[in-house]
């Protein structure tokens, strides 16, 4: 069964919100508002996103894992390497001195945290991504875009909803 994409652009954020609300309420065969609707926005727009319902963000788990691994790795590797090569005294300090090792552990904790957070961001946000089938440069300027994906049968009524809310422009995927 082939799916068709539709992209509607809105200047007015309130209208876009109304569309999202309506689409979540509507029941159409071959269209699931939770899965098939994507909002594209030029700015970070938490109000609009909250209308889409709770969607979990998992980046912080990557952060936690990365930071802890970084710190543990640093401390164990540093102490172990001191115990090998540097079983030779320096300045009368213990061969495995804690204060310097803690400083380095702290740095590695942050290093691991930052690196793995960015990795987690790329994984969770699905980047680098292939461009979606419909896109308008207006979305990166000042308009909000709503991209829906539905069966061909449903696309007519979706379009009607968009027009009702004064969509500036509706892009349609070319028929196959």
């Amino acid at each position, binding site marked *: 069964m082939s799916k068709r994409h539709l992209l509607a652009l809105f200047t007015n954020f309130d209208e876009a919100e109304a569309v999202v609300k309506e689409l979540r309420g509507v029941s159409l065969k071959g269209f699931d508002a939770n899965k098939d609707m994507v909002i594209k926005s030029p700015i*970070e727009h938490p109000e609009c996103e909250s209308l889409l319902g709770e969607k979990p963000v998992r980046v912080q788990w990557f952060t936690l894992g990365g930071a802890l691994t970084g710190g543990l790795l640093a401390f164990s590797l540093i102490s172990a390497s001191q115990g090998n090569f540097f079983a030779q005294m320096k300045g009368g300090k213990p061969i495995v001195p804690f204060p310097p090792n803690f400083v380095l552990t702290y740095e590695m904790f942050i290093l691991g945290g930052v690196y793995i957070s960015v990795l987690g961001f790329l994984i969770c946000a699905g980047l680098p*991504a292939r461009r979606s089938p419909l896109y308008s440069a207006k*979305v*990166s300027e000042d308009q909000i875009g709503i991209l829906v994906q539905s069966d061909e049968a449903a696309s007519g009524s979706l379009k009607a909803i968009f027009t009702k809310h004064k969509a500036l422009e509706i892009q349609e995927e070319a028929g196959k």
Partner: protein
Amino acid sequence: MKDIREDIAWAQINKDVLKSLENPRRMYWVILFIAIAMVGVAVGCEVYQYTTGLGVANFSNPHVWGLYIATFIFWIGMSHSGTLLSAILHLMHADWRKPIYRFAEAMTTFSLMTAGLFVAVHLGRVWQIYYALPYPNMRQVWPNFQSPLLWDAMAIFTYLSSSILFLYVGMIPDLAICRDNMNPGWRKKLYTALALGWEGTDRQWRNFRVTYLTIACFLIPLAVSVHSIVASDFAMSQQPGWHITSFPPYFVAGALYSGCAAIITLFIILRYVFKFEEYMTMGILKKIVRLTFAIAMVWTYLNLIEYAAVWYGHDQAAKDVLIQKATGPYAPFWWAMNFCGSIVPLIMLFKRFQTHIPMMMAVSILLNLGMWLERWMIVAPTFSHGYYPWTWDHDQWPSLVQWGIVFGSFGWFGLLFMVFCKVFPSVSMYEVKEMVYHRSQATKKLEATGKMAAAGKGAH
């Protein structure tokens, strides 16, 4: 005085900022040319020093460190206010930072790169610099993890790479804007690759928000630790005038101070060069100037505390170093540093001068001069008056080679920074839009409640 016009059209924001990638004022090319010439001077000096030996910098037995280490600290310090603007103020929801944080963050990255060069310039055998890295090897030979210099290397590596990631992640939505608006060519290809297919979908924004916040949370303690570690190079040593407990906070305050002053300088330059008058407004300048003044007073306090602690302390050697700073061969520089660091910022108290551009330009340069002198006054006097009397009468004046490399480092920074501002948007477009959006929403709300109140009054 508003920080930004609230009715500014979003398409206009894109247009204005993208224009900075195309045609800056002629001043841009003048600055770029001067910067390249300065780098040329430094490269010449460095080639001479590399082939001949560090003796040409006029180092000598007690005076083994000189301007290189002082300037190294200066550049590391400069990097801190980028983090202040982008991370600390982000967490505090101070949205006036939005039009100016991008270039501040770029300043962080490039001043760290400049500082890294000084490590190389300073070393006697720079071709063996990889010995200081903990790379795995068959013979189990490791660097010395006890050395504050190694902590430095680790901290700077962490800070530099985290700052680059922070700058990059924060720039992805803007890179997508550039991608969408560029004519085909190498630039379009570059932005397309760097934007990673960003389309501003809700999933991308959601994860973006959390990631940005997380990195900001990491960067703040990191920035504090980086300059504390640089302070440890001195505080962990045993020399009089260096072995001072209050050094880490003192260094961090000094770092924020010189960084904020540098932001004012660059703010004024960028505003003129790229015609950013709409975004880098007088309201924002006023706010940075006030912030700088506050930090200047913190620094002044810590500076005086340091003198007091040494003066009333038990350590005669440290006290002698202090006396020698104020009366010895370094006295003019020491007094100039205190004047530039503590007296000059008082100009910022006057409202009239807070938005007076030539005056603020002069003040910010003087503040940075003072902070550079401060670093020199930390490094050098200890060598000329250490514990051991035999070293007290040695020639200490840096040679032209040292001055040339220090001079050229400013060109190197300027070069990197100016090239960055031409290739990447130096004002964050999407965040300026957010700022305009939230401010206009707030104004609307205020007007609505105002009307309601007025209506309510009428009914009553």
